[in-house]
């Protein structure tokens, strides 16, 4: 089946009016005569697929045959990913974090802690990624998204002293510039989460969590820069600025590691990448696989130790902690696999349908052609 036809292959180019256009005023005549080129005479050879049942049929079958295996592969991969989610918002009375969520106040100095026990049915073999999830949190609200100053975050001294207008009303506090300014920074997630493995024999083992490698490399190394490139003493650099209103610590005390402090604190960078949808998760920590013998997280009982700082009840939000392994295609998401399988099968079915139509109508058309 030819999927295309070539239009008029004779795109030969001849020089116009060579001697043919003789006669009175030959010179002016020749110049007026249009050139006989394939383009000007609209004879460009054009490849034109004609969409008939016959020509698209193979395409449908090919798509079907390609998409279904891909879909199955994706689906299987997605199913092999282990994911565990625990909601620690503390809305219900029975929830361990209920008190913390009830007694929240911004200016309490004593942190409220709670521990949420959970059980893993399966061991997590490879690296495990720990996320926190928020829902009903509109990080994509326009007022919120633009409320930041990228040049301040890039280490611009001037912007540090004079934050952009976009940061309003989180630009200045007590006449001091806020660093980092804006609503996003101000509302940075500040619960701290710890994982404790409870041995079958009752001993509690703290799981080591890695706090680096959670942000985009380019963000950490290019987009976010601490001001005063040479000066490693952030306290001095940030002098004259004030911390965001909701923060308990200034920006230069986010972490003890100087490479993860100030604007280049990865927790901060992760938070600054505003999520697309109101229910989102953000990478919190990575649990590196230590040995080949033991699983990263063996099955058994765990406890999530929460320092409850972040209020979500006012906007009916939820807070979750998610543990997930990762494959080449990311976290658990059956959507892509299912979509591939269904599109593939639809194509295949359409192919069959078209085959029937082609058989039925194609013959009729051809017959009509012949009788012509």
């Amino acid at each position, binding site marked *: 089946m030819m999927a295309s036809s070539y*239009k008029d292959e004779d795109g030969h180019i001849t020089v116009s009016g060579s001697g043919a256009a003789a006669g009175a005023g030959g010179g002016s005549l020749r110049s007026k005569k249009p050139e006989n080129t394939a383009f000007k005479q609209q004879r460009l050879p054009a490849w034109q697929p004609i969409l008939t049942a016959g020509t698209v049929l193979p395409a449908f079958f090919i798509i079907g045959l390609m998409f279904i295996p891909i879909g199955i592969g994706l689906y299987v991969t997605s199913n092999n990913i282990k994911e565990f989610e625990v909601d620690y918002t503390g809305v219900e009375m029975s929830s361990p974090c209920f008190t913390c969520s009830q007694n929240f106040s911004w200016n309490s100095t004593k942190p409220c802690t709670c521990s949420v026990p959970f059980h893993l049915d399966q061991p997590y073999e490879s690296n495990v990624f720990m996320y926190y999830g928020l829902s009903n949190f509109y990080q994509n609200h*326009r007022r*919120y998204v633009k409320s930041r100053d990228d040049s301040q975050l*890039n280490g611009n001294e001037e912007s540090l002293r004079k934050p952009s207008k976009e940061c309003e009303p989180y630009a200045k506090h007590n006449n001091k510039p806020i660093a980092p300014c804006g609503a996003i920074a*101000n509302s940075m997630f500040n619960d701290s989460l710890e994982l404790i493995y409870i041995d079958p024999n009752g001993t509690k083992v703290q799981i080591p969590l890695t706090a680096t490698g959670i942000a985009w490399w380019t963000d950490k190394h290019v987009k976010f820069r601490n001001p005063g490139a040479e000066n490693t003493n952030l306290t001095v650099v940030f002098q004259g600025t004030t911390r965001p209103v909701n923060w308990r610590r200034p920006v230069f005390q986010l972490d003890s590691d100087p490479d993860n402090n100030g604007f280049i604190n990865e927790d901060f960078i992760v938070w600054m990448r505003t999520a697309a949808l109101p229910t*989102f998760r953000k990478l919190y920590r990575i649990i590196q696989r230590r040995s080949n013998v033991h699983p990263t997280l063996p099955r058994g009982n765990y406890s999530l130790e929460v320092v409850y700082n972040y209020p979500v009840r006012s906007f009916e939000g939820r807070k979750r902690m998610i543990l997930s392994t*990762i494959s080449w295609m990311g976290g658990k998401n059956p959507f892509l696999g299912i979509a591939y399988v269904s599109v593939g099968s639809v194509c295949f079915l*359409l192919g069959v349908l078209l085959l029937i139509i082609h058989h039925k109508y194609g013959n009729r058309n051809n017959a009509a052609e012949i009788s012509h």
Partner: protein
Amino acid sequence: MCRSSGDVNSAFFTVHTLGTVEALSLHSLCFPSRCLFHSLWCHNLFFSLLRSCAGEENWVDSRTVYIGHKEPPPGAEAYIPQRYPDNRIVSSKYTFWNFIPKNLFEQFRRIANFYFLVIFLVQLIIDTPTSPVTSGLPLFFVITVTAIKQGYEDWLRHKADCSLNECPVDVVQQEKVVRTQSHKLRVGDIVMVREDETFPCDLIFLSSSRDDGTCYVTTTSLDGESSHKTYYAVPDTMAFKTEQEVDSLHATIECEQPQPDLYKFVGRINIYKDKEEPVSRTLGAENLLLRGATLKNTQHIYAVAVYTGMETKMALNYQSKSQKRSAVEKSMNAFLIVYLFILISKAVINTVLKYAWQWSPDRDEPWYNHRTENERQRHVVIRAFTDFLAFMVLFNYIIPVSMYVTVEMQKFLGSYFITWDEEMFDEELGQGAQVNTSDLNEELGQVEYVFTDKTGTLTENNMEFIECCVDGNVYIPHAICNGQILSAASSIDMIDSSPGGKRIRDLFFRALCLCHTVQVKEEETVDGIKRGIHQGRPTSFYISSSPDEVALVEGMKRLGYTYLRLKDNYMEILNKDDEIERFELLHVLNFDSVRRRMSVIVKSISEYLMFCKGADSSIFPRVVSGKVEQVKAHVEQNAVEGLRTLCVAYRRLSESEYQEACHYLTEAKLALQDREQRLAQAYDVIERDFVLLGATAVEDRLQEKAADTIESLHKAGIKVWVLTGDKMETAAATCYASKLFRRSTQILELTKKRTKEQSLHDVLFELNRTVLRQRSISGLSVDCLDFGLIIDGATLSAVLKPSQEVSGHGNYREIFLEICRNCSAVLCCRMAPLQKAQIVKLIKSSKEHPITLAVGDGANDVSMILEAHVGIGIMGKEGRQAARNSDYAIPKFKHLKKMLLVHGHYYYIRIAELVQYFFYKNVCFIFPQFLYQFFCGFSQQPLYDTAYLTLYNISFTSLPILLYSLVEQHVTIDTLKREPSLYRDIAKNSLLRWPVFLYWTCLGVFDAVIFFFGAYFLFDNTTFTSNGQMFGNWTFGTLIFTVLVFTVTLKATKCLGLGFVIWGSLLFYVIFSLLWGGIVWPFLNYQRMYYVFMQMLSSGPAWLSIILLITVSLLPDVIKKVLCRAICPTATERAQVRKRFLKIDLKFYLC
């Protein structure tokens, strides 16, 4: 009383002139219609003001020119200084200073530009989701490009003006020839023009270097006629040969105020000689040398300037014709309104939902996202209104910003294919098709009615004298006598013998030699001509505006009577005995299409003779004797054969009769007002009591492939009407020859002959019944019988006349239209030019509003060319007036086939797809943003980055579709030509109907939903990177945008071979995105796109989902196309398949 009123008049007169001058200088060439309007208005005003007391003598709409700026002697009329514009031609629109404001003003008068300006201003004023750059930049781009183009054009115009205004001119001053610059010329200056020079302004011809006071002129640049025309000097001044003599002339010229009609001029010259009464002479168009024309074959002439600068007829003729709008443009505007409505409703819905959603303060202002104090204090109504505007701004891209530019570009560039078309190039003329307006390209694909002129359009207008009939005897010149070569003398002598017959015969031949306006074009000196003709060498030839006359005079030459020349008002004839006969030419009663005849009054040695020739219908009623019956029979027989017939008659005038006629004529000619009317009256009085001499038959051959063209047009479903001024029989014969009527065609006649017998009412109803009956019988089989209608001018005007009775006989017009609707071909004969336009208008305004096309070659077709939706001019022999006034000009009638069936078809398909595609791609673009509002708290958060919003229409998706719309050929040229019926597939604007529009819009919405929710489910609360890191909202938008750009571009590619443009365009998008995200741009105050695109590409699932989403969104369109093609294929689709089979067959044979 009258004297005082005269003063009042003069006062007004000056004001009036001033007003006109001002109007002319203010509005330059681009607004000539306004100038005209202005002066017209003034004119009317003056008339109404003055009619009350002024007598006939006061022509306020005239001007008085003092030749050489000399005041008339006292006693004549008072000297009224008048101000005229100088001879500066200003065709430029702008000056250096007013260019920017004026051009901007002009551009923002366009509704689309204005819309985007408003959006831009809203963005500047209020806090909107997208930066003003997003709409400002495209707008700036569009405006700049247009301004540069217009500026460049205007600069060219300035340059042209400059060179025109500074070209040297010889002026006679103080008895000397002085050289000045053209723009310094004033009204009243005496100008000397040499051979091959162009006249610098409109001049009254005073004297010539030629003894007979004539000069030859070509008006090629004015109306395209390359023939030499003769102009005559004022008889009283033609003796002036030197500067001194000319400068001594003391005269004034009174003439009308400038008018755009090139062929009309009325004026009067008053020559003052010492203390004598001034001598008055009339001036006509033959005395007026027009600016732009060129002097030929004459050494030099003297002439006086009467109209200068912007008042010259050439300048007044630069008026832009009224804008015709194509059907596509109309539907485009309708679609735009729908989209505007969608836009507003989207904004309203979102605003309402926003306020409903954020009713609770925790949603409105959660703790993490407070408003500023300022915003909080704003009143809620203002806030809601601002939100509404912000939504409008967010969704404003649904109105495609670049559509107008792209459409215009497509039309402009696309029209080159017509001019480039080699097949429409005529070797003989040395010219190809010409495009005067590119606005109507696609209308060529929508034509339902073709109105064509007969002579010169269907036929060659290359007349050949066939035979003549004198007193019932037939004479055939030897050259065409069926191959039998007979000598001229024998062919004449063989039939006739009687002495009376001989006398009449000689008179007949003389009549034809004298009664014409043919000029002899000389190649050499006067002696040369004589010798040349005598020896049979073609050193001279005849020129006339009417090819019939040339044919007749040449026919006479073959019969032995040679017209030599007009010299000193004596016409010289070489009769067949080689003797020169001289007749004094006294008067020429020119031909006009109303009278349909012309006459001359000559004086032979002893007697006054008036010869008249004209259409039989206009001669027979005026004939008193002669063999009328025999001639009539012969004329009819000739007409049936398709020959053009003219009758010749004469009348002997006595001295007193001549004086009387002379009196009538001079009086009429001297009149400055209603001269035309008066002349017509005079002609009517003089031209009567003729003696019939005989008739002539001239053949006008059909144009090459005329029949084939008409047949193709019929097959394409186009109804062809022939409108002609010819007799019914002649026209019908032509129609049969050109296959307009076939043997099987049932002819319905609606002519005066029939209506004489029955009442018009009965005839109409009877015809209607016939047509309806036939239709009900034939039922489905359409082509079993078709009808042809013949109607003549007289009956037509009776039909169109609004009936007196309100409800009596009903409306003839409707019945007539009903009959016409069922006829495949209609012939309208005996039509006056205005009637042609009337017919076109009638069909145009009938209830289906069909698209009409008028094609013609002569000045009498101009009215219908202007009236029809598309006017096509044939570059014929009768001058270029039709071609100039048309939208497209083609060399031959046969080119109409390619014009409509190929070019029209392509253009229509191209533009229709372009328009639909534009709407589609903007729905795809904006609808995800709309959906996103539901997930971002209706906060007007844009989904895409500013750069993407800005460049989507300008660069990412514009080039492929522009190229597609320029070169798309769904069927080859050959197929289109071979199968005219394919034209029916696109009839009635079929690709831009509402269902199609709805389909595309739904397709856009579907694709948008696929894009958005595909990305949504992919992003839904999970990660899709292999390092566990998360993506943000900008990645979300970029993913959607990437899918969008790819889908939309591939949709344009689907049937396009120019892959490199598509891939180039997509590559550009990718490279741009990489670059845009690859650097921390120092000039931006946000870096939200930094590395977003690269990060997205580093993720496998992103790739997979891009592929998936593109496939899914392309799927429904493909399925729909395939199913439609399989189940109910259109003729075009069948042709495509057939073409393929042909190819396969061919290959098979070759193997």
